[in-house]
């Protein structure tokens, strides 16, 4: 579904991604972990071209990310959930969810609303459809954001530290939604600090340090038996 080869990314003179090679198969849940500044969020943001890449190739669902038209085509198929939710504050929860399907996918308002209501129910917010974001808790906002991304019927979902800005008691409700998605077979790339989630839901764990993939494998294996000393150091600090 996703193929990344020899991806390099500079911010000015600073090289933040130093030749990333990575594949994500259909229905696979890949969890990316690493310290702050390791490049994990940047890598994720490169996957739908929110960051320009310096060199290398990204192919998603057979389409190379190399022209404006392709970028828009790919963004339709790749949903993204942000750390800070980024809901549209001037729209209700339902309006947030149904806008893009209408103007990007050209669905009728009725069709979009059907999808929107179904998704908001699915994330447990069927009673909040007409609320504005500022009247929702962080966890609720993030669940609306997930519904908004899903309303485009994406083939891949990217999660950029989706629970990092949440109060601890709200982390669970968002992780539960993500877990359900994974169970339904959604292809997911998840940048997170939630090691429990990584271990339980992830099919594969990727550890990034200083812009390179240092280690990858099944989460249980990497957690219990990290081979690389940098992985060992990182895990010993957080586990």
């Amino acid at each position, binding site marked *: 579904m996703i193929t990344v080869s020899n991806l390099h990314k500079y911010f000015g003179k600073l090289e933040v991604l130093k030749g990333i090679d990575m594949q994500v198969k259909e229905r696979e849940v890949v969890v990316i972990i690493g310290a702050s500044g390791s490049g994990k969020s940047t890598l994720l943001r490169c996957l739908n071209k*929110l960051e320009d890449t310096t060199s290398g190739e990204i192919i998603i669902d057979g389409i190379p990310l190399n022209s404006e038209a392709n970028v828009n085509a790919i*963004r339709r198929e790749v949903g*993204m959930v942000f750390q800070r939710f*980024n809901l549209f*504050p001037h729209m209700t929860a339902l309006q947030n969810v149904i806008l*893009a399907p209408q*103007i990007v996918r050209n669905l009728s308002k009725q069709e979009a609303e059907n999808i929107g209501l179904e998704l908001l129910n699915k994330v447990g917010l069927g009673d909040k459809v007409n609320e*504005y974001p*500022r009247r929702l808790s962080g966890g609720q906002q993030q669940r609306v954001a997930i519904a908004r*991304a899903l309303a485009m019927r994406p083939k891949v979902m990217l999660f950029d530290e989706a629970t990092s800005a949440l109060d601890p008691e709200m982390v669970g409700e968002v992780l539960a939604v993500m877990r359900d998605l994974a169970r339904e077979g959604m292809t997911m790339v998840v940048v997170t600090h939630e090691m429990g989630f990584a271990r339980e839901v992830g099919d594969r764990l990727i550890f990034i340090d200083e812009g390179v993939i240092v280690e990858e494998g099944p989460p249980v294996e990497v957690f219990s038996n990290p081979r690389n000393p940098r992985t060992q150091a990182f895990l010993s600090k957080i586990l």
Partner: protein
Amino acid sequence: MTIGVINWGLALDSFPVLLQGAKITLQFTVVSVFFGMILGLIFALGRMSKNKIIKFLSAAYIDFFRGTPLLVQIFLIYFGIPQLIPFTLPDNYQYIAGAIALSLNCGAYTAEIFRSGIQSIDYGQAEAARSLGMSHFQSMRYIILPQAFKVVVPPLGNEFIAMLKDSSLLAIIAIEDLMYTGKIIAGRTFQALPIFMMVAVMYLAMTMALSMLVNYTEKRLSKSDNG
């Protein structure tokens, strides 16, 4: 009537004639604010464009019209432009020149207001819109501009009030606005004090009405939640 006797009654007597002038003042304000907003949006987006030429031209326009006196701009367009044009301009060219000068001036200020409004919107909003597959235009149209508009209502209101007052400069090129009408009556009657007091009161009434309208709009907009 002797000089030195102040005829306050004349202020009231002149009111109907001054009101005709006030109508012209309002018309010029409305026209220049209307075109000023269109120009302002275009040049605000131009100023933020990635295209260097568009960006440069937009910045040049904004800097010129913000950095030179409105009176000079009016003279350039009223007296200057005809020198470039090979045919004779219509007799009422002063109206066209006045409207163009005010609109261009208003557009430059409005462009900066719009730009700061647009840039005040969290960049995450544009990222979220683009990540959903919206084009640049769609994300502006549906996400950024509706939010920016709320931010710019108060400064935009100030700009419109300033425009209404500054339109009095049009009197100098013989447009019969409130200022010009007052000047004519005062010149004929030598009653500058009562007449210009009346003119001032009428400008004040208009700016206060406008400012109330702005406050009302602001309140209505903030009623719909803007997070």
